[in-house]
Each structure stands twice: as structure tokens, then as C-alpha cells.
């Protein structure tokens, strides 16, 4: 069950008209591709995708699930929006309530275990290994954890465990973290047990119907068998503009921390028919990730260019994340920026600054929302959001 209804409000203009899981990432992907591909690569053939905020683009993107091999006769991909019922009509009130409202969907497949995921993290993980761990421990709830820096721990769900990985304590965004083991938002539950807790949680009028705040604490309070599954691969919550930019730049790391090129664990995505990228005579591209369908005549360095972008002669793009089908016209400069999908940067525009050019004023990445046209000669300062 993939929770994909989040607004991702800290991505500002990038999630104005689209849910966070549908935000483009890494040249040709959208954020949700990572958890969806993880499911498929882990042998999961039935995935419910829970949508709520701005679902149009996401629904369209997932379609019948074919790009992820989830167009199945039995199971497959199912988009699950909230729906009206005879007694009460409501939106998904929280993560636990979203699953509660879809108990009938889960029951159709009579699973022994349910994996609860969020569709807004960038990582590659084989959930079948985690399930193996869940079974070996005889667990009723297993939470994947990753080691984080102490300063990040205050923003996350923090777990304390005994020497046997059993969870002894769980705190959501603690002011004084007791450990550096943070929840990745990946849970495996034994379904019969979870169902019972979801029903109880729903009956409690004081509950916020949230896994981290209510359901997991209830499991621990009752002494249920809850374990932490340590994960040591790459994992990033791309919930802020800064972390989204960072995660894109991580793709340029020659050590490939995300293991993108593993042919046995591919990240699948919906592909649009675009030709190979054309690097025209006179173009200069270095240390960059460039998807198909681009035409580059100018200079591109330390950047991630998504499908179908155009960089005209004399234009220069550096340290930038340029999302699909954006055109950077003649002699424009895009430095340290995220430029949304389908933008037109007219000629002679300057977006952002190189780090070495900055003066006394505040410096950071500039962000242009989807579909914007930036008129000739405009100067967009570092940190400005358009």
C-alpha cells in the first residue's frame, strides 16, 4: 500500500498542481517510480496507490501500471482515491485512516502481510529481504530504519531498540532524540494484527489516525512484537527544495550511491517516445546526467537535464536541475536552480548565481515552477521562487 496523497507543501511551486510523488526526478523518473519499482523488484504483484491531493497527473502517470509490469490479471496496480460511502463520507484523515478506508481492497487479496510505503522517498530496497526478517523475528510489525545525523533526528521518527532489534521506544520528531535510528516510512505488518489495530484506532475519537503518532505507539504500548530492520543503502526524503536538488546532484556521484545502473534492480518509469539526445557541434557537456529527447547547443555542466529539454547556443546551465520539456534559449544562464516542467527561459535571462559570483546577499538555489515563461532579460536572484 503506497501512500501517495501527500501535498509536499515544502516543495512550494513544484507541487502547486501536482502531488509530490508525481514530481519529476533524476532525468526521466518521477519520485513514485522508486517505491513502485522497489515493489516490483521485490516480487510484489499487487499494489494499492492511495491518492488524495491533486491526483490528476499521478493517475494519468500510473495508468494501468504497465511500465512497472503491474498490468496483471490478478492484482496489479490500483489507484485508490477516497470515495463516498452510505454512512460517512470523508477524505483520508491520516496515514492509518487511509489504510483503514481501504480494508475492503486489501481483503480482496487475503494477504498474510502488508507493506506500507510512502511514495515520496528516493531509495532502492528489496522488501522481500525485510519480509524475511519480519518472518524470522516472528514480528507483527517491522519498521525499516536508517542511521541519520543527530541534527536530522529531530525532524524524523526515532526508534530505540534492544540488542535483538526489538523496538523499545518510538518518538515522532523528538526534541532530544534518544538514538540516531530513524524510520524510513517503510512498514511491514502482519495483516490480521494490523487490521485489528486500524479498527481500534478508528474507533478512538482522540486519535490523529497516523501510523507514527498513533498506531505504532499502540503496538508498543500493548507489547506487540515490533522490530526495527536496519537498512544501510541510499535513502533520501526529497520533501524540501534543498533535498530535492541534493538528491538529483547525488546522481552525478561516480560511485553511484543509488545503484542506478544495476540491471537486476532497474527503476522503471513511463516512457514517452522521444528520440536520442542530440549534442550539436559546439556543445559542451560535462559531469551531467542527460535524458533522451534533449537538444544541446550550449554549455551544460554539473547538471541533471530531464527528457526533452533544449539548451540553445550560447546558453549555459550549471549546477541545475532542469525538468522535462523546458527550453533555455540563446545566451541565458541557469545556475544553481531547479527549473520546473515545460518552462520557457527566453534569451538573455539570468537565473541564480555561481557560488564564486555571489556577493554579500543571501545565496541558495533559485526555483522556477512548472510551465512558467521567463521573459527576455529577467534576472532571478538566488533563493528566489517563481
Amino acid at each position: 500500500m503506497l501512500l501517495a496523497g501527500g501535498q509536499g507543501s515544502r516543495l512550494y511551486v513544484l507541487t502547486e498542481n501536482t502531488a509530490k510523488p508525481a514530481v519529476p526526478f533524476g532525468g526521466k523518473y518521477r519520485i513514485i517510480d522508486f517505491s513502485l519499482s522497489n515493489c516490483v523488484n521485490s516480487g510484489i504483484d499487487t499494489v494499492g496507490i492511495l491518492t488524495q491531493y491533486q491526483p490528476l497527473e499521478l493517475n494519468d502517470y500510473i495508468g494501468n501500471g504497465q511500465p512497472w509490469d503491474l498490468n496483471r490479471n490478478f492484482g496489479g496496480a490500483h489507484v485508490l482515491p477516497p470515495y463516498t460511502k452510505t454512512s460517512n463520507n470523508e477524505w483520508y484523515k491520516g496515514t492509518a485512516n487511509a489504510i483503514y478506508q481501504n480494508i475492503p481492497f486489501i481483503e480482496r487479496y487475503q494477504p498474510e502481510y502488508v507493506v506500507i510505503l510512502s511514495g515520496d522517498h528516493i531509495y532502492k530496497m528489496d522488501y522481500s529481504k525485510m519480509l524475511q526478517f519480519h518472518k524470522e523475528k516472528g514480528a507483527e510489525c517491522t519498521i525499516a530504519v536508517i542511521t541519520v545525523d543527530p541534527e536530522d533526528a529531530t525532524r524524523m521518527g526515532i526508534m530505540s531498540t534492544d540488542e535483538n532489534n526489538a523496538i523499545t521506544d518510538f518518538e515522532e520528531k523528538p526534541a532530544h532524540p534518544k538514538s540516531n535510528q530513524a524510520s524510513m516510512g517503510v512498514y511491514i505488518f502482519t495483516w490480521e494484527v494490523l487490521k485489528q489495530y486500524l479498527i481500534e484506532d478508528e474507533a478512538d475519537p482522540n486519535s490523529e489516525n497516523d501510523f507514527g503518532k498513533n498506531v505504532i505507539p499502540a503496538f508498543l504500548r500493548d507489547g506487540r512484537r515490533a522490530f526495527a530492520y536496519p537498512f544501510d543503502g541510499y535513502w533520501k526524503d526529497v520533501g524540501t527544495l534543498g533535498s530535492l536538488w541534493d538528491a538529483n546532484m547525488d546522481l552525478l556521484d561516480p560511485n553511484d550511491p543509488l545503484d542506478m545502473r544495476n540491471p537486476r534492480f532497474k527503476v522503471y518509469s513511463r516512457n514517452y517516445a522521444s528520440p536520442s539526445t542530440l549534442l550539436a557541434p559546439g556543445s559542451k557537456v560535462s559531469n551531467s546526467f542527460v535524458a533522451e529527447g534533449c537538444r544541446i547547443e550550449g554549455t551544460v555542466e554539473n547538471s541533471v537535464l530531464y527528457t526533452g529539454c533544449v539548451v540553445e547556443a550560447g546558453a549555459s546551465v550549471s549546477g541545475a536541475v532542469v525538468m522535462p520539456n523546458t527550453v533555455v534559449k540563446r545566451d541565458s544562464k541557469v545556475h544553481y536552480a531547479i527549473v520546473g516542467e515545460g518552462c520557457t527561459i527566453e534569451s538573455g535571462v539570468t537565473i541564480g548565481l555561481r557560488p564564486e559570483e555571489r556577493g554579500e546577499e543571501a545565496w541558495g538555489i533559485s526555483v522556477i515552477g512548472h510551465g512558467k515563461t521567463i521573459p527576455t532579460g529577467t534576472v532571478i536572484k538566488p533563493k528566489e521562487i517563481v
Partner: protein
Amino acid sequence: MNMTGIIFSEMCNDNLNAFTLDRNMAAIPFGGRYRLVDFPLSNMVNSGITNVAVVAKQHYHSLMDHLSKSQEWDLNRKNGGLLILPPFVNGSFSQTHRGKLDDLRNALIYLEDADTPYVLLADAHVIYNLDYRLVLQSHIDSGCDITLAATCQTEATQEPYGIVMEAGDDLRATSFAVDTQAAPGAYTGMGVCIMSREKLIQVVRDYTARGSYDLYRDFVQAQFNQGNLSINVYHFQDVVLHIRNAEEYIANNLSLTQPEIASALFRTDAPIYTRVHDEVPAYYGMDCDVSGCIIADGCIIEGSAQHCVISRGVRIGKGAVVKDCIIMQGSVVGEGAVLEHVVVDKWATISAGTELKGAPNSPVIIRKGATV
């Protein structure tokens, strides 16, 4: 839709034998991520044709593998869709496949079953982006027996064309020749032919019964010369690339690095579809130097490349220099290797430091899977 499409997959196999030892013509890689068959097939899909058969004769493993995901072309249909017609032998008719009439004899059951008034024939070795509905409209408006799409030659040609016609301003053919050179002003066929389905079935029956096998020579030319057949010429005025031999294959493949040719073939309103491989985007290294190239997904380019077509998943090592080359899927060019006028077929390895130099008219060709 009122047309059924038939694609002939191996018209020039023998002239391209460096690339057709273990695949047929239609499955030859082209443009970094495509195979030749993608072009006529996508044109058909973009023209609203949902009933397409691809005629195969030999070495069609690659072709079947490529076309097996018919959803990429939106041809996974309950009604119609994509069909590969491999050769078969039955009691009264053993296949020899000497020409298009033989191929169509093999496709007779398919043609009889089709529910459209017209049939469109296309070749896999001619590359263009054309809405066949325009050709059909021209055919219907002309009232002629058949319509052939053609381009008008501006200068005399050395290489013979399969069909060479002359026509006046009304675009009715006044002469028709096969396998010959074209003079300036002549119309050269693109392998695109539209005629009524019933008429085609009748022609295939009559002519194969008499031992004829060449559609254009034995039927069209013979009947035209006797004054029994009217030919409408559909004058196509955009980019057409003929691939009749290895030199043309290489030159036309490299011509895609010219933006005006690429934009004529790859149009957003009429995309060319192909099988998806889910490769990651290409990575360009710190010191790479690439210009005048087309590069597909999955590549890691750390050396220098000028005027090349580089397919999916190719690696060009540090310090390597690749010029005027075609590097096919999954091949590796080792560090410091120097390649000029080389065609590297799929999954080959060029060891570090190797130097290979061909000439424009005689390229070095490295076989699929070879290690140099």
C-alpha cells in the same frame, strides 16, 4: 480505419550482410535507440492504422523479440493489432520468397480476413515521417488503380532505385521502371503503395499462379506498359532516407546528427515509437568532449566523440577518441582507444588503447559481441 498495413521486413538483406547475419533488415539498429521497422510501424500507428502485419522470412528472432511488446506501438488490440507473418509451407505452395508477390501469397489469409477497403504496403528500409492518410486521400481523389508515394529527384543518381517514374503536373505516371537509376526530375518510389484490398488479393492469386513473384515488375510494370493500369504519384516533399547498402546505412545513420534531418523524422506530433529498455539517462563525465552526436539512454561517456551515433548503454572510456562512428547497444570502447569510421555492432568490446581507422567509403565493421 480503412487501411490494413503490410511491412516487408527484408528487401535489402543481402546488400547489408555485415549487419544481417543474425537479424533481418527490419531489425537493424538505427538512430541510437530504434530499429528500422519502428519507422514504417510508427507511421502506420500515427496514421490511425490498427491492423498491421510484418512479413518475415529468415533470422527473424531479433524482429520478434523487438515487436513482442506490441503495446509500445499501441498495437496490443483485441481487434487487429500487430501480427508477424513468418514463412510457412503448405501442401500446394512451398515458399521461396523471391519477391513481394511471394510474400503477399503468404499473407493471403491475413488479407482476406482484413476488414478494410484498402491495403498499404511499406518497406522497412526506407525512412521518413509520413501520414499515410494523406496518401490514401490522394489515392481516392485520383481514381487511379494504385498510388505510389515518391520523391522528386533533383540530380541524377548512381545507386538504382526500386521504382523510378516520370509524371506530369497531374502526378499521373507516364513511365514506370524498376531497379534503375533516376534522372533529374524523375520520381523515385519510397516503397509505399496503396491499392484496393480486393484488387490486391486478385493480383496475388493470378500472378503467383503463373509463377510471377515480383509485384512491381511482373504486375505493375507489365500492366502499366499495356495501358491497363493507372498509377497515381503521391509527391512527398520531406526527408526520405533510403538504406540499400552498408554505405547508405552508415551515412544516413550519421545524418541524424544534423538537426534539420532529425527534426524532420522525429516530430512531437508524430513520434517514432520503439521498445523501451528502462535504461538510466546518459552520464557525461568530467572531461568528456562530445559534439555533433546523438546519444541514447544508459551511456557513460568519459572520452571524446565527434559526429557519432551512440546507442543505449554504450561506454566510452577516458581518453578514448571516437569520430564518424556508429556504436551499437551495450558496446564498450576502452580507455584511450581511437576509432575513426568504425561501426561497432552490439555488445562488442574495443580494448583499451586499440586504434581502428576505416575510411568514409570503407568503414571498419566490428561484429556483434566481438572483442578487439
